[in-house]
């Protein structure tokens, strides 16, 4: 796609009319490509090994399994027959070309905030920038009566913002242009709230924007075995101690001094945020830093070296200390500070102090791989310990790190660990190790 731009530059003043038009088209298409990354369309609509955006990603929801659709320009299986108006209605209002309602796994309540010009660019990109792929979408596996889509229309009517309210909110909410841009990206295309905001029993996000209350981005329910943490300013469990540059580094490279990406967020960074311009990432960070703590009661975390000193003196009397020193300290250190941004710190890490320990237990059980990113090509792996530690050992060591170094989260029992092992995400450790001899 750099070709035409390059041609345009070397032609200089001798540009023809059609070259200008082509240049403008290219710019729109590239803007659409960028927005598709910002909106992380690939996370849900692309499956590794299949044509890009040809759908088929499955979502296990309480009512059954649904599959994402083919959004390539293929006329039969994709969106080749959508007009721009129909495309816009689907993306921003959750209404398909046939008039039925999309499952709200598609974050149209967030996309509702997107501007007409951004939607236009997105449409141009999905029309001209993505190759058509004739891949049918698998049938959803939701049993009647939940398979009926009309109740979804009622849901949409009750909970989703109308285009008018969504867009009018975007305009003028923030006078600071950086905050406004951050709000637009976070609340709109990046749809952070889809995971990081709590949902009501009826599945709608309890708040869709910063101005609709402090529940917005205050931490969501479990997704694929991981509990999305608060992105607000809680000192211990939110981003209170993350600097803007930490947030930028995290979104750009999946790693920061304060922590590394894991779980479902890995794909969001890999396919989405790492492709954003630094300026946009700074806007996002600036905006997130403006969200006051939902939980105002947290005492500020300060480092406590009691455990560090004990471990240093080989005092392993505390439950979990021996497992920690045998299995964890090599990377995360006896002082819990890790080796940022290679091996993340556990001391003061908001994920470690989350009320719900499921993410922490799952990462110990299943391990995690931090993939190679464009701006940080090194990949790092935390091994899975589910075969190496008993439920009791995992409970002990997780409790240990939730109490050490100034952390103050609740204890975890072996019974909890046993329960969590049922929802353990698949280990992404390569398991094709040849025989050890």
């Amino acid at each position: 796609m750099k070709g035409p731009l390059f041609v345009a530059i070397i032609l200089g003043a001798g540009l023809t009319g059609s070259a200008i038009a082509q240049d403008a088209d290219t710019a729109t298409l590239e803007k659409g490509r960028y927005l598709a990354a910002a909106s992380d369309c690939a996370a849900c609509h692309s499956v590794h090994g299949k044509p890009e955006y040809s759908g088929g990603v499955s979502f296990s929801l309480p009512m059954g399994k649904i599959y994402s659709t083919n959004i390539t320009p293929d006329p039969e299986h994709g969106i080749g027959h959508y007009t721009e108006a129909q495309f816009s209605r689907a993306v921003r209002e959750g209404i398909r070309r046939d008039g039925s309602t999309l499952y709200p796994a598609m974050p149209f309540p967030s996309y509702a905030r997107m501007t007409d010009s951004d939607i236009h660019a997105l449409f141009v990109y999905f029309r001209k920038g993505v190759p058509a792929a004739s891949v049918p979408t698998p049938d959803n596996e939701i049993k009647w009566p939940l398979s009926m889509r009309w109740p979804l229309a009622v849901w949409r009517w009750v909970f989703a913002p109308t285009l008018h309210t969504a867009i009018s909110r975007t305009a003028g909410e923030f006078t600071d242009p950086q905050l406004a841009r951050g709000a637009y990206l976070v609340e709109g295309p990046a749809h952070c709230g889809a995971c990081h905001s709590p949902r009501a029993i009826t599945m709608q996000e309890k708040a869709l924007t910063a101005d609709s209350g402090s529940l917005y981005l205050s931490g969501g329910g479990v997704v694929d075995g991981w509990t999305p943490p608060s992105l607000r300013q809680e000192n211990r469990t939110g981003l209170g101690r993350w600097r803007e540059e930490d947030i930028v580094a995290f979104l750009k490279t999946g790693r920061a001094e304060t922590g590394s990406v894991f779980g479902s967020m890995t794909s969001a960074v890999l396919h989405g945020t790492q492709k954003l311009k630094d300026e946009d990432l700074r806007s996002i960070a600036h905006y997130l830093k403006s969200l006051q703590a939902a939980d105002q009661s947290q005492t500020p975390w300060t480092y406590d070296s009691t455990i560090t000193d004990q471990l240093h003196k080989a005092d392993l009397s505390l439950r979990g200390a021996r497992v920690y020193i045998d299995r964890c300290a090599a990377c995360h250190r006896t002082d819990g500070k890790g080796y940022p941004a290679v091996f993340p710190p556990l001391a003061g890490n908001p994920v470690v102090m989350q009320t719900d320990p499921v993410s922490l237990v799952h990462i110990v059980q299943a391990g995690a791989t931090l993939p190679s990113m464009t701006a940080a090509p090194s990949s790092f792996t935390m091994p899975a310990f589910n075969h190496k530690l008993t439920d009791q050992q995992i409970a002990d060591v997780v409790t240990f790190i939730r109490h050490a170094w100034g952390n103050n989260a609740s204890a975890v029992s072996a019974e909890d660990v046993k329960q969590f092992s049922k929802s353990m995400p698949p280990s992404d450790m390569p398991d094709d190790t040849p025989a050890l001899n």
Partner: protein
Amino acid sequence: MEPTLNAPRRRSVVKGLLGTTSFWLASGNARWSEALADEAAQPYRPIFFDIAEYQFLEAACERLFPADHNGPGAKTLGVAEFLDRQMQTPYARGENWYMSGPFEQGPANLGYQLPFVPKDLYRKGIAGVERYARQQYGKGFAALSALQQDEILTALEGGSVQLGDIPGRVFFEQLRTNTLEGAFADPLYGGNRGLGGWIMLGFPGARADFMDWVNQEGASYPIGPVSISGETA
């Protein structure tokens, strides 16, 4: 020879795989340490070696690495079991050795030039030592006194005994090497039971982290060993 006891089927399936990914999958245990403990809880039935060969190994390895005031000997550490398990690996089949002919013998410093892989060395070597023991003492090796056993091992080490087509010294070095491997390898492979070898040396095992203990000004490292599967001492 086949195991004579009615060992559980799982055991015979996984035996040769100990320490491999396939072992963990086939063992059916959720935790590696439990899979290993289950294995260790049952008497070991050798697969490669027959009973007499295995008895020779138990006796000879114990002389090479005897129980004493330093710590356990080869028998307690499970060295013979380690050897039998090793016989089922690519190592025993010489798969990483250059084994193309012709096989010409030359000066010792140019290295091993026999057409035999470790499995062959054991089969032929044990038979040869047993022949030698009967010739010299009228009994099989395992039935001899410790002193007599030591005499035979000394003779082998010294290079004065030929065991058929294998020089006694070659067999001795093979046996010594594998015995010491069995005493000090991770217990994953069947030896170093109870981490006894590592405790003897003060070796901390698979923790592999000395960031806080790089230089202790001559004091000993303060934490006991841990194995790959998580066994501690």
